[in-house]
């Protein structure tokens, strides 16, 4: 158990060392979310078509856009895994004493670390264009812990997918097919109440909605009435995906 935890930390360390050498991806991936909050947000808020219960529209979507980016980063983390499968890295890792689950959870949480940096880079831009955050450091900290763990779960999805889709091209396709529906069928850009009934049902099972709800409560509205439910949902989501991805991980090298 201790050893498993230690190996997870080693995988996180690996990711931090990678980031230290090359941060280009963090910057290029920041372009899209910045466009959402700098252009799409102000334009849509001038239309005033979306009821956000008093919160300015750009403020409303900022957590959604942050989560969207971090989710994308995590879902495409599987590409790294596919590359490591094509090379001999995964074979070698699976022949070490480290357990499968510590590799899967470790790599997933490593993606969580990447996600934190990805979310942080959006903050100053949001402040610049006047998004009002709840001025409470504890809330901030909790929000980033939520982002960290949720991203780990999404990265586990990507590891699960990577163990079935063994080429990069296929993985890219399926990655898009997962991320876009998750994003649009969530409360990232509009309240769930605005959706058609069927989508509303789907949204109850959409982990992204819980993450956005938690982070929006902590960073923007300060309304924490749903926080407990959100956290429980994220915990269940993580646990389920970690288990599934660990089970399927072995087939990745066969």
């Amino acid at each position, binding site marked *: 158990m201790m050893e498993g935890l230690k*190996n997870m930390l080693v995988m996180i360390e690996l990711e931090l060392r990678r980031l230290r050498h090359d941060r280009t991806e963090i910057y290029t991936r920041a372009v899209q979310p910045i466009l959402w909050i700098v252009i799409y947000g102000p334009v849509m808020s001038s239309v005033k078509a979306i009821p956000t219960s008093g919160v300015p529209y750009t403020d409303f979507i900022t957590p959604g856009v942050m989560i969207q980016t971090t989710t994308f980063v995590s879902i495409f983390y599987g590409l790294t895994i596919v590359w490591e499968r094509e090379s001999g*890295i995964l*074979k*070698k890792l*699976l022949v*070490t004493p480290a357990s499968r689950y510590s590799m899967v959870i470790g790599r997933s949480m490593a993606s969580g670390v990447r996600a934190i940096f990805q979310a942080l880079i959006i903050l100053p831009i949001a402040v610049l264009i006047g998004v009002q955050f709840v001025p409470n450091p504890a809330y901030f900290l909790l929000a980033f812990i939520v982002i960290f763990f949720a991203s780990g779960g999404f990265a586990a999805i990507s590891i699960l997918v990577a163990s079935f889709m063994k080429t990069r091209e296929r993985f890219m396709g399926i990655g898009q097919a997962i991320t876009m529906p998750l994003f649009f069928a969530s409360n990232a850009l509009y309240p769930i109440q605005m959706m058609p009934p069927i989508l509303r049902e789907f949204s109850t099972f959409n982990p992204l909605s819980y993450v956005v709800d938690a982070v929006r409560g902590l960073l923007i509205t300060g309304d924490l009435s749903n926080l407990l439910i959100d956290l429980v949902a994220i915990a269940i989501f993580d646990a389920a995906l970690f288990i599934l991805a660990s089970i399927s991980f072995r087939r990745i090298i066969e």
Partner: protein
Amino acid sequence: MDFAVQVNALVKVYDKKVRALDGVDLDVDHGEAFALLGPNGAGKTTLIRILTTQLRPTAGEAYVFGLNVVRNGSKVRRLISYVPQEMSVWTDISGYENLLIYAKIFGVPQLERAKVIDEALENMGLTNVKNDLVKTYSGGMIRRLEIACAMLIKPKIMFLDEPTIGLDPAARKVVWERLNVFKKEYGVTIFFNTHYMDEADLYADEIAIINQGKVVTRGKSEELKHSLGGEIIVFTLEKTALKPDLVQNIRKLNFVKGIFEDGNLSVLVGDAESTLPNLMNILKSEGASVEKVSITKPTLDDVFLKYVGTRLEEKGRISDVTHMRDMIRKG
């Protein structure tokens, strides 16, 4: 005492069709360097992957130091280190960092870590590039880093899948000298696949030749060569002269122990001096004009040719693998 590796009637069938291993029996003493030679698709890599607990055999059993690789996989993984054929280091961090990550995964105690890593770097001649990103390394340096990774812990056995592929002869020599020292100092068993005949000849204590999923012969290099017996007469003929009839006729002669053709005609006989005139006469009477004759003692190459039926193709294979490794490296 248990064997370092013991394999009984091992069978591996992929997708219910491809029979990669077809009843392999093998045992390897500890402390020795054991080479597995074979043409492409003979099952060499499959065997290593089963022994390193990556694949489950379809039938039969395999043991590493008395531990069953299927039932005691996690115990086996504590004893072994492994260098896959494909590139297996992270290219976006430095060589030192690669070793650091593996040292931590292998549980090398913190106090020893720096010393162990420096030693491995020194052994593989990478000390002066240790802080450079691996993507700036040459193919040969990457291969050496991978072997350094396998040397970090003092494993009981190292499984090396084509350890020196793509290295130039001088670099190969250095790597093997280090591996030999490592083997002697720590009693590490080395189990390796190779495409370099000379490498098996020089550095392996024992060699097994594997073809179509079966071990066709095994022994020390000298024994294998002796087992062919006698001498080999190589006739260089005009291209058109090498007819199936001719080969058949020579094969029928009672002093001919073996015959192989691979462009040239090689005839294995007990004594070359007394049989050469006879052979020349036959060739002449069949109308084949001989351009050159040479007499050699059997080499490992000839052993391979006898048991497998073709020569080991080094060139194409090696450029395939190095090309593949380059592609992976560039992402």
